[in-house]
């Protein structure tokens, strides 16, 4: 499939340009001491990471999950809850985020994947709502008000250092891209994508698609949890507002805007959506009145998302 291995062409060029820009941001911030740039781009990058994760399940696996923001919340709350209990070690936070997510995503994915189509969408939504209400009522951990992190994940002298957070986030995103690129091209990815198109044929060929799908679902959940971990450290704040179905919806929008069939697409989608929001905000307070129709037009005329514009013909 040429969509994955473009050696030359616009896609490669634009992807390299975007990555170069992302690498340039901390350098710019270092010279101008403009930390806000790190916060702004960092937040978008974190959402990009989550969108990348969702894309594995949604774009390649065909699993439309309206509940992935829940995993972002889990990653963030791993930091928040441990921190409020006095446990600050950064590696502990990271490990907890990943392990808790796997422990929760695996059974949830298994239950959800017993259904398909709209039922799957709704069940993922239901689980997300359940967790949302649980966290809202947890008065011990801030409830609706959330937890303000007095101390961020402890990574020695790098604790709370915006540069360190941004750079490690960028490295994580690049790693994720590289891994996903290989996963999708591997036999695992092949079975996954085939199952999306026609599950029955895959079963007839002797491969049980369920373990592949659950694995893809769990991997995508873990990527979202990592995004939540970084967001918690970037903003120093954790609240149930991060796990509403509206946030899940935004993630889907990012994946779709970027174009589902590619690995890099979601990152483009995240930047497209959030930067356009920021830009439109500078122009007018009524920016949703411009963004809304823009999205509709993109859907109607750009069938494969923004990234699809660059597809090799």
């Amino acid at each position: 499939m040429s969509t994955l291995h473009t050696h030359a062409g616009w896609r490669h060029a634009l992807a390299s340009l975007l990555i170069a820009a992302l690498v340039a941001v901390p350098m710019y911030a270092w010279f101008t001491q403009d930390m806000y740039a790190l916060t702004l781009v960092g937040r978008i990058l974190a959402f990009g990471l989550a969108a990348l994760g969702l894309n594995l399940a949604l774009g390649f696996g065909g699993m439309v999950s309206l509940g992935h923001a829940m995993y972002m919340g889990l990653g963030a709350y791993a930091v928040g809850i441990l921190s409020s209990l006095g446990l600050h070690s950064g590696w502990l936070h990271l490990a907890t985020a990943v392990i808790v997510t796997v422990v929760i995503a695996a059974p949830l994915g298994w239950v959800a994947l017993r259904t398909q189509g709209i039922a799957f969408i709704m069940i993922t939504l239901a689980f997300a709502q359940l967790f949302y209400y649980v966290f809202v009522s947890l008065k011990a951990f801030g409830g609706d008000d959330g937890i303000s992190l007095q101390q961020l994940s402890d990574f020695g002298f790098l604790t709370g250092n915006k540069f360190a957070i941004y750079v490690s986030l960028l490295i994580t995103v690049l790693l994720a891209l590289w891994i996903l690129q290989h996963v999708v091209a591997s036999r695992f990815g092949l079975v996954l994508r085939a199952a999306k198109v026609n599950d029955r044929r895959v079963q007839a060929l002797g491969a049980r698609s369920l373990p592949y799908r659950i694995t893809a679902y769990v991997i995508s959940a873990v990527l979202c949890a990592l995004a939540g971990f970084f967001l918690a450290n970037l903003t120093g704040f954790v609240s149930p507002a991060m796990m509403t179905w509206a946030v899940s919806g935004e993630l889907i929008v990012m994946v779709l805007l970027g174009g589902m069939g590619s690995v890099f697409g979601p990152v483009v989608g995240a930047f497209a959506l959030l930067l356009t929001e920021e830009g439109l905000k500078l122009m007018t307070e009524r920016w949703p009145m411009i963004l809304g129709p823009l999205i509709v037009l993109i859907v109607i005329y750009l069938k494969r998302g923004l990234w699809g514009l660059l597809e090799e013909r």
Partner: protein
Amino acid sequence: MQQLTLKALCAAAIATCALATTSASAQVKIGFMSTLSGPAASLGQDMYDGFMLGVEQSGGKLGGATIEVLKEDDQLKPELGVQIVSKFIERDKVDIVTGVTFSNVMMAVAKPLADGKAVFVGSNAGPAPLAGAQCNANFFFTSWQNDMQAEVVGKYATDKGYKNVYIMAPNYQSGKDNVAGFKRYFKGGVAGEVYTTVNQPDYSAEIAQMQAAKPDALFVFYPGGMGVNFVKQMRQAGLLGQIPLLSVSTTDGSTIPALKETALGVISGTFWGPDFNNPASKKFVADFEKKYNRIPSQYAAQSYDSALLIDSALKKTGGKASDKAALTAALRAADFKSVRGNFRFNKNGFPIQDMHVFEVAKDAQGRVSLKTASTPLKDLADPYVKDCPLK
């Protein structure tokens, strides 16, 4: 291909705009942030309108200094609030940050504000931790500590001799805080305590349950849309005349226009009402109505006061905001004529003020508004100040 290049260029241009620095030309820069979109936007808008009225009164100057106000919308998203406050402090280098509608956003931005040693004048949210253990010498609030409104209603209920009050609130932090505040001052018996789902549309089941408990009064905390729903449904059940409804934030300037006569008779507790008699308040109400064509809510009054407070402080520092110590000292002095009458700060930056009880009634012009009923608590200090380590 042209489409994409154009799009890429636009994105790049927008990105550059987002990252570009803004130039400063005013003497004092103020960053104003509130919730200006979503269902609760009317609160944030009221706050902005009240604040700007205060700024524009003296021709865009406070304390003699020309003011530039940067207005931002936190969309009720705490992490967006953090991003905006970071921008205010690091990029725009504002002298004062003000506003903040909701407590969860307030708790999120408290940290970057404290880390950046920013001067903050809050004009709505007043969560308990910021009054207690996390109090900050640079934070000032011209509104109230979140529990105070419920406390005065609790005192009112005690004074009225109610023995069997049924309590209802939404199941989130603010709901529980308000119930706790009510119970702190209410010495009678509780007939029932029910927490409903946030944004629940239909209360008929809870209303039936409440009727079965036969209380002599009902206390609720239902802000915004929830308040409109609840009061409408109580009125339609014919119960509003029969069971006294005591409330907090349920019938205020933002919900009364949607309820009109439906809300007549409902009691609420807060620090200010549009029928106050002091000169500052009368001027404020008259100017506000003339400019915006509506009766100001308490949220507008709070923010108007914050502008007056900043004005008084800048007068003392000679229009300069660069000396933070002098600015905070001047703010702490609170030497201004507040629309609520007496105003002074407690050591934690929250006001010590009289709290009143209001009834929804028609004003002199026949419009449905709030009428002052009584003043059960004078010079009320919040209950969390004892946890504040500041002197």
